[in-house]
């Protein structure tokens, strides 16, 4: 059972401008490589962080790609 804060966040979402799933996938590789390079990925891809907060599936794929690309 979700903690109340987590549940509220999941119900209400990030509450700020965000990209959609298609744009998230399109930008995902650039966002990940920028993060790995220590660059400001959130500034380079506005709305990405908010979408990853609001979309569990995209967040899972982002975490996987980040981990895999870091090990490559």
């Amino acid at each position, binding site marked *: 059972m979700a*903690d109340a804060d987590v549940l509220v966040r999941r*119900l209400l979402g990030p509450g700020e401008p965000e990209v959609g799933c298609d744009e998230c996938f399109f930008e995902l*590789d*650039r966002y990940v490589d920028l993060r790995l390079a220590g660059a400001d990925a959130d500034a380079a891809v506005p709305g990405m962080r908010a979408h990853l907060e609001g979309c569990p599936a995209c967040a899972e794929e982002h975490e996987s790609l980040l981990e895999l690309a870091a090990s490559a």
Partner: protein
Amino acid sequence: MSAGPVVSVGRVGVPAGDAETHEWLDALAGKGARYEEALSRLHGLLLRAARFEVARRKRVMPHLRGEELDDIAVQSADDALVAVLARLSDFRGESRFTTWAYKFAILEAAVALRRRAWQGREIPIEPERWPLVPSGGLSPEADTEQRELLAAISDGVREALTPHQRRVLLAVVLEDVPIDVLADRLGTTRGALYKTLHDARVRLRADLEGRGLAPGHEGSKSHG
């Protein structure tokens, strides 16, 4: 493979094409034996990514045997190879080629595993019970505020959302139905369904503001 240097090329912080990326693009633009060898290496790269994704998720899928999991990885790599070749002209050189290619294999494997996990499971259409939420160690005052907020959200779900928005929000948030699995069942796409989820959240936030309650995050001008 190494991360390679990162330099600015017109857009701040965008990775320049590394030598390995150029080598991949040259090989995939080639012909004959060099092209066939590049395809074989690319499939190997995608299979590694698909197996990586399977390995990440298998701990939450203990009922699946290793053979079935590897079949999913191989099929995902096959599908990803087709997708990568079809979209090769979309590659902009703003990431390493390997990172770009990996994302297709991860997507294919993740979607396949979510589908497999929900195979044969019914998706509740309208969850009838609102979950009881533990206090989570909050002070009595904060606990009361949280419960009031959740009660108001519950009212908003019932009164401000369309039946489709309510169905999507409750399935994804309360029942943890993966959005791509739900999209399959409803005959739509993940992107379209996320737009529905997003619009539902915007409505809920507006409804809360109308009730004089401020949610934890500011703003409701997001777009899908």
